[in-house]
């Protein structure tokens, strides 16, 4: 198997001299993977620790210090390491990983999490659950939309479907359990909420989240590398578009001419 850890490093600083493994519990996942678990809940603090460890692992892998490691999978509360058992073992990998983090300053500027702003048409046929949600939250529709727009979200993880992003945290007044009866088809592009999370469906899929609106631009493109817009740790905001802009963006996307770089918010303004 070919080691393929070469995605850009996300610069989440860990304390110099502190083992990024501190507080992680090892859980076996067969003879070719193990999981380092930091907790069992969805919290920003856990995400930060997972991201820090993932960055540490990827730096070591890029330096050739982890032969046999195939790839890592960050989740809300853990990091999975998948390896080739012909080449290494969990004990061997952990010995290397346990050494205190060094060279934290070597991360290139610009490697940090990206900020994306996605166009969304809220409500109507594209957001069939908006009215019911507004009633539930005792807010007018446009106020609910404003609160969803005003809260930049972090990408906790990707999974469930290829490119499906779990974003959080949605403002607390919009926290709701999943639908008791999942839909058999949620259209691609749907922006939906459940619990403290917002999700965006890159594909038509069954789904049990409340649909607020729809994003007309493609979130997955297998002809591009990487095929997915986001990675864990990125920041995502939304921009309210009307039906005309929605249709125009959808048309450009259908023609395969949409440039996803237009969704990146430039972050070089801060001093």
């Amino acid at each position, binding site marked *: 198997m070919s080691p393929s850890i070469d995605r850009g490093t996300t610069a989440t600083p860990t304390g110099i001299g502190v083992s990024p493994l501190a507080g992680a519990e090892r859980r076996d996942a*067969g003879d070719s993977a193990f999981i380092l*678990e930091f907790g069992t809940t969805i919290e920003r603090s856990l995400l930060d620790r997972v991201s820090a460890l993932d960055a540490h692992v990827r730096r070591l892998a890029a330096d050739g210090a982890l032969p046999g490691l195939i*790839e*890592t999978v960050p989740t809300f509360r*853990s990091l999975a390491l998948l390896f080739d058992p*012909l080449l290494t073992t969990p004990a061997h990998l952990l010995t290397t990983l346990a050494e205190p983090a060094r060279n934290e300053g070597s991360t290139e500027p610009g490697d940090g999490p990206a900020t994306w702003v996605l166009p969304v048409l809220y409500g109507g046929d594209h957001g069939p659950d908006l009215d019911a949600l507004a009633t539930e939250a005792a807010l007018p529709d446009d106020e609910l939309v404003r609160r969803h727009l005003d809260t930049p979200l972090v990408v906790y993880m990707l*999974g469930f479907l*290829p490119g499906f992003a779990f974003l959080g945290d949605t403002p607390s007044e919009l926290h709701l359990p999943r639908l008791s009866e999942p839909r058999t088809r949620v259209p691609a592009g749907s922006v939906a909420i459940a619990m403290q999370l917002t999700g965006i469906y890159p594909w038509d899929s069954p789904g049990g989240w409340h649909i607020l609106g729809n994003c007309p631009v493609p979130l997955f493109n297998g002809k591009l590398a990487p095929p997915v817009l986001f990675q864990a740790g990125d920041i995502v905001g939304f921009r309210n578009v009307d039906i005309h802009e929605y249709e125009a963006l959808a048309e450009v996307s259908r023609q395969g001419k949409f440039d996803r770089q237009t969704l990146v918010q430039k972050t070089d303004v801060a001093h």
Partner: protein
Amino acid sequence: MSSSLTIVRAGLLSTLQDRGRFGLRHLGIPWSGCLVPCWQQLANRLVRNAPDACVIECWEGGLQLKVEDYPVRIAIASHTSVVASIESADQKISLKPMRSYTAHPGDTIALSSTGNMRQAIMAIAGMSVESQLGSASTYAKASLGGLNGNVLNNGNKIVFDYKPDGPDLTCTDPLSAAYQQKVIRLVMGPQETLFSEEGLHNLLSEEYVLRSDADRMGVRLAGPSVFHRSDDAKNIVSDAIVPGSIQVPGNGQPIILLSDAHTAGGYPKVATVISIDLPLPGLLRAGTRFRFRAISLDDAIRATRQQHGLVQETLKNMKPVISDSLSTQTLLANNLIDGVTDGTS
């Protein structure tokens, strides 16, 4: 010389698969790839391809290919009960698994039934498939790999480079002992603590039956419930899934997840099937009964390395086929004779 095979009939589910698409699980993209990696390597070696080259993975059978302009060498890796043939205008020969054959323009290659197992693999010498994101493996859910992101369909063409080198080859099947194996080995975890003592006892001492709903994502089992510790323990905050993860939804009936499964999920995973036993649940017929046995991680890694040694040994010990029906055509194709006529022309 570049030539092609036409898929006359694709069968129930035939996909192009290589070793897999690595490095993208963090984006929710599973590995895909052959479910029986040693068959893939052997079938490729039998036709003198690189061991990790792309092959056709066929479920149940019904696959039929027509040879177009040039001869083609193929090999099927499967259980001995496979039903396959090469049919030309004047004869039909039955194919044995674990050996290569040469088919000629106009011939029809059929993999009619995968026999006592649910899958078989066909390698084609010099087959060339464009890879996408590092692999030609088909993952139709995200339109990746295969032919235009899809499973094989009637009328598709498979392109290969014709190379008439050396005699046909044959080898043994390193899985032949495994089919009789009524035990699937696993390593406990990652979430075994979320199950009750009785649930774990059931898993490790009772019989389970493979159900008919099996595909490249996973295989469902039926048997005594693997009880969760409590209702709260029936769902977890999503955690990584790996090939071999045994997830247990609320109903207590385990599901063994395979190469095309989601990369993360919210059902607790009681244990993980060790990699060398992982082909079995996808191969054995629905209704097959077996037990699980928990082994230590060290023992699992040792077993994997041992099996790897056996496969390497088999790869090294390919034997040339002593042809049982020497025809002028095969001799010519194998380049063993040159310019000899059969005396009647």
